[in-house]
């Protein structure tokens, strides 16, 4: 059964106030075509769960976010995400700040349907002070104190893969799976965007079986979005578009420049975005 959808159909299935997990890491393999589609929608008050990058920044810039759950928000080669900074400094989003390892254990707990996962990460730090709902427990064996990280459950996960078939089996071709499979297993519904749809017999033509990261058992919808991770990195071929990312960050720091950036790149649909980026490459 085909689960192929459009980005607009994915966004149409979401509702205000939902908790949405977003795969990738920093400015790496982010499902930004789906994020851009959310930016064009009327959705609001979303809780975003992510190893954050421009996904979090764009959604903050478009007023879609009520709460961010993350251990960081960064563009990697540009350390600070300007829109997220602004949102935090203006007090327009609330923030649940985790350690990176705590965050992964939260995903693991959710993926395994466990009530918590124990870890030392977080003990002694302000992360526990600003998250008063987090509890520590004593090991029933040796008595050591550990943080009981609750499951990072989510209504929907959005991830971007290099290839997928029409039923939602998906593989990655880059060096790192990030936590995308854990997001898919933690979520009630997962939508996969991909660089290219292929027939199931062709899935393993480009990668080994271990690169089949996501199973159709966890996938509700598949969207073909070539360049859909732009400007973050994707696969072996699409390195991060550093020049475009620099333009994004520079524009984000100034209201007039940001209005211009929005008009030029984000005022139309995904095809218009990809065209505008292509034109900018030829004539910045």
């Amino acid at each position: 059964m085909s689960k192929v959808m459009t980005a607009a159909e994915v966004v149409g299935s979401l509702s205000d106030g939902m908790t949405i997990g977003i795969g990738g890491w920093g400015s790496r393999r982010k499902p930004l075509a789906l994020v851009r589609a959310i930016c064009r929608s009327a959705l609001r008050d979303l809780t975003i769960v992510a190893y954050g990058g421009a996904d979090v920044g764009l959604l903050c810039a478009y007023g879609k976010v009520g709460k961010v759950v993350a251990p960081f928000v960064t563009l990697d080669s540009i350390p600070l995400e300007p829109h997220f900074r602004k949102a935090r400094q203006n007090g327009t989003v609330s923030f649940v700040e985790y350690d990176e390892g705590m965050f992964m254990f939260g995903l693991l707990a959710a993926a395994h349907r466990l009530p918590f996962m124990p870890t030392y990460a977080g003990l002694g730090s302000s992360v526990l002070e600003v998250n008063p709902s987090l509890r520590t427990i004593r090991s029933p064996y040796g008595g050591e104190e550990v943080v009981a990280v609750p499951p990072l459950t989510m209504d929907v996960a959005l991830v971007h893969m290099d290839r997928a078939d029409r039923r939602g089996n998906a593989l990655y071709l880059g060096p790192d799976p990030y936590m995308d499979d854990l997001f898919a297993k933690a979520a009630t519904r997962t939508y996969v965007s991909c660089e290219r749809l292929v027939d199931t017999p062709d899935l393993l033509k480009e990668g080994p079986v271990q690169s089949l990261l996501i199973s159709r058992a966890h996938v509700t919808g598949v969207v073909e979005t070539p360049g859909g991770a732009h400007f973050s990195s994707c696969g072996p071929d699409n390195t991060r578009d550093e020049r475009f990312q620099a333009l994004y960050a520079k524009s984000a720091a100034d209201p007039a420049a940001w209005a211009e950036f929005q008009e030029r790149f984000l005022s139309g649909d995904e095809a218009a975005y990809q065209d505008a980026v292509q034109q900018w490459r030829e004539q910045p």
Partner: protein
Amino acid sequence: MTASRAEICVVACAEAFRGDGEIVAAGLGGTCALAGTRLARLTFEPDLLTTNGEAYLTGDVPPLGGRSEVTEGWLPFRDHLWLVLNGRRHVMMGASQIDRYGNQNMSVIGDWARPKSQLLGSRGAPGNTRVNTTSYWVPKHSPRVFVPSVDFVSGVGWDRGAHEIRVVVTNLGVFDFATSDHRMRLRSLHPGVTVDEVVAATGFDLEIPAAAPESRQPTDEELRLIREVIDPRGLRDREVPS
């Protein structure tokens, strides 16, 4: 050959990893931290494992900003986070603020609820410091960084259950915690730096030994490795101008 200040810093960062053996040396704090892990591996700690900044453990030691030709292992982010708990890792991070016990902040400046400046977020600092040996690299030693009290504890210090905060290397000197209650101590001054300069750039009382030694000079071979093999593009000088 005369070493630049940046080259003194690279050697001081490398020295932080002396004796570590066959563990992952993660130089996350900046150019000199990364160069230091590579210099240590090419000289006195040949068993160290180092990464390309992404998911590869490199079998060679590529130049900064250059490509590795040999891969000896796979360390995606999920395994990096596993390794933190496993413990075979020494991380050298940066710090927006650090206090006398080595508590570090990279999250926010000001009140966390409504920050004056939102920085990176805690990243892996809480776990790194609680379970791994941690050092810090601070390219610009100033009272804005060396503060009496950090605005947010991202990385925990000695008084909050750190596994081991080994050294803090800055553009002015090397600092450790070899005092009775693990307060920060001046270990060595970089050539040309005075105690007064360090005191003026530090926002809390440092333990100052009666005669502070000078940070060691690179050997000729180390200078050659830094200049020709590790950092032929001179990225270190952008981080620590001479």
